[in-house]
């Protein structure tokens, strides 16, 4: 990485660590805000649609395998499992759509036998798919889906993905098993608000740091002092970006912790068993690793982008003026994933939007591996290219000495 990179990075980190105001604004505040906003939204949804404590959820099941039945029959879950046949399915779906009943599960016949011998590595046929039909407008249905999906997800992970949930089928090519006719607040909350706030706060965390640091160096005349040395500009730019990235990551971590706590707090009261359900139960280690990678790559991208804009600006004020409007763009992109649900690879090529889609997908357990890999890769590539741009700008007399 080079001596210069390290020295510049170390200096940057030391400086910000000792600037309490900046540290608070960039690192602590986003996490607190995310938690506060989610708490508030959570409270509002609970106020809007409460579910009776003693509500028994009606779960219609076609070909319910013994393994899943065992998992779902715990009394605390308050699930009433009603056996059904494929012929009943259309009627039940209508009932769900009309909000008269809660959930329909359709398993392939002999699910347990297939799963027991299924090997994703060698299988010629796709993994058996479970269809979960619900209605996200009806709170009881959304909650029933949440309970069932949480349980099945755990099973899914323990079986290392030997079956799938709600994959598109011939009859349901769009993979939409939600019979709701309008968006549900809870789904909106999880699918739109969370990714949006997560991405937005990573951005605002970086935005609190980068203009001050980069344009600030220009304005205070300390950048020129660096540039008269023999040190490589590429290394200088990289050191600067990496130093800032360190804090941007802390900021992302703050947001992540805020998110974790708010998800824990948002779990509605569903009996003893699920009372302890929190973040770590909803997301697998893989999910968390991916959220982390998205956060790292996105932070890197944001820091580099902001560094380019700040290097271009003459003063901190100017840098803030050009980077603040970007917040709106980021917000729109960050909301996109929850509003437009699609696994189209083309969407993976749109920065910010792609991260949002993937965060939503992780929350809804509908992640597309290729999509998330492209997204993370693209973030890193953009970040590195933009860091190169900063280095080039450091060498440009027009930008440094104009």
């Amino acid at each position, binding site marked *: 990485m080079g*001596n*210069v990179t390290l*020295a*510049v990075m170390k*200096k940057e980190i*030391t*400086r910000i660590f*000792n*600037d309490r105001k900046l540290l608070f604004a960039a690192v602590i505040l986003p996490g607190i805000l995310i938690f506060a906003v989610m708490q508030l939204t959570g409270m509002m949804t609970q106020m809007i649609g409460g579910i009776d404590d003693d509500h028994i959820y009606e779960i219609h099941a076609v070909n319910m395998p013994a393994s899943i039945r065992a998992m779902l029959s715990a009394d605390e879950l308050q699930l009433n499992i009603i056996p059904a046949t494929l012929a009943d399915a259309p009627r039940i779906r209508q009932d769900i759509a009309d909000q008269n009943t809660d959930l329909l599960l359709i398993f392939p016949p002999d699910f347990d036998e297939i799963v027991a011998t299924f090997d994703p590595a060698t299988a010629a046929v796709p993994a058996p798919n479970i269809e979960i039909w619900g209605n996200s407008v009806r709170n009881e249905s959304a909650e029933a889906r949440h309970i069932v999906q949480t349980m099945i997800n755990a099973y899914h992970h323990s079986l290392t993905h030997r079956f799938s949930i709600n994959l598109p089928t011939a009859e349901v090519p769009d993979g939409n098993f939600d019979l709701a006719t309008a968006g549900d607040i809870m789904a909106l909350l999880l699918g739109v608000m969370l990714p949006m706030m997560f991405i937005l706060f990573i951005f605002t965390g970086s935005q609190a740091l980068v203009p001050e640091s980069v344009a600030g160096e220009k304005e*205070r*005349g*300390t950048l*020129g*002092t*660096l*540039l*008269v*040395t*023999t*040190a490589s500009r590429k290394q200088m730019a990289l050191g600067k970006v990496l130093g800032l990235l360190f804090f941007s990551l802390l900021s992302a971590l703050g947001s992540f912790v805020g998110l974790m706590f708010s998800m824990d707090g948002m779990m509605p009261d569903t009996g003893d068993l699920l009372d302890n359900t929190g973040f770590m139960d909803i997301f697998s280690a893989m999910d968390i690793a991916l959220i982390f990678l998205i956060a790292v790559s996105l932070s890197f991208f944001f820091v580099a982008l902001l560094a380019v804009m700040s290097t271009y600006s003459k003063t901190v004020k100017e840098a803030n003026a050009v980077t603040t409007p970007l917040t709106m763009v980021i917000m729109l992109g960050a909301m996109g994933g929850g509003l437009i649900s699609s696994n189209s690879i083309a969407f993976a090529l749109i920065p910010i939007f792609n991260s949002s889609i993937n965060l939503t997908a992780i929350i809804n357990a509908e992640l597309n591996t290729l999509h998330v890999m492209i997204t993370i890769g693209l973030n890193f590539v953009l970040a590195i290219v933009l860091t190169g741009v900063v280095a080039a700008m450091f060498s440009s*007399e027009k930008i*440094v*000495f104009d």
Partner: protein
Amino acid sequence: MKEILDVRNLTKKFKLTKKQQESKNIKTPYFAAVDHVSFKSYEGEVFGLLGPNGAGKTTTMRMLATLINASEGDALVNGHSIIAAPLEVRRNIGFLTNELKLDEFFTPNFHFDFFANLRGIPADIAARRKEDLFARFGLGPYADVRIGKLSQGNKQKASLAISIVHDPAIVIFDEPTNGLDVVTAKVVMDFLLELKKSGKSVILSTHIFGLLENLCDRVGIIINGKMVACDTVPNLAGENSLEAMFFDIYNKTTKEAV
């Protein structure tokens, strides 16, 4: 005498915006801030660039320090071309101006180590140099005080010490006493005198005649980007003061231009 600096037809053209063209009253979109300037200076000498505001002094020095590119011409700094070997040039110069500052948040100690590190100076050599320079500038008691908390004089001392971490052969100093209070200006004057005494080569720019008369061996007069005279101080001044001679040349040059 060994040549330490050989400037040959050094030229800097700036592209002007429409607005700049109007305000400068120039018809062409290009304007030569430094126009085929040539001069030499020798080892151990203090060379002064004298000229009114906007004459092109800063631009010349920035080109010599390889901070901006020359449009034409070249300069050899201790034998290294600013065009072909900018890194070698930077290794050989210390560049100082009041626009280049130290980070208020860090201490002289930190800065010294940081810049020694950036310049790839071995730690033991850097430590010895730091001890020597801090002692010479009386910075010892302030070595661990943040720059932001230092008096202007001590701040300036720290800047001076740090600009020569790498023991450069030439020190280039743009407007050394500009905007400084008298006490700080004295710090800088003493520094320059000491550099001179120790046989270092110095290039400085100024529009202050006193500085030139007290310090400089040779003076180049630059007006509107052109070097109009360059010689030793006694040769330039003759019977008169440097000041009288300057205004004589200045009036002649600007009259010709009109």
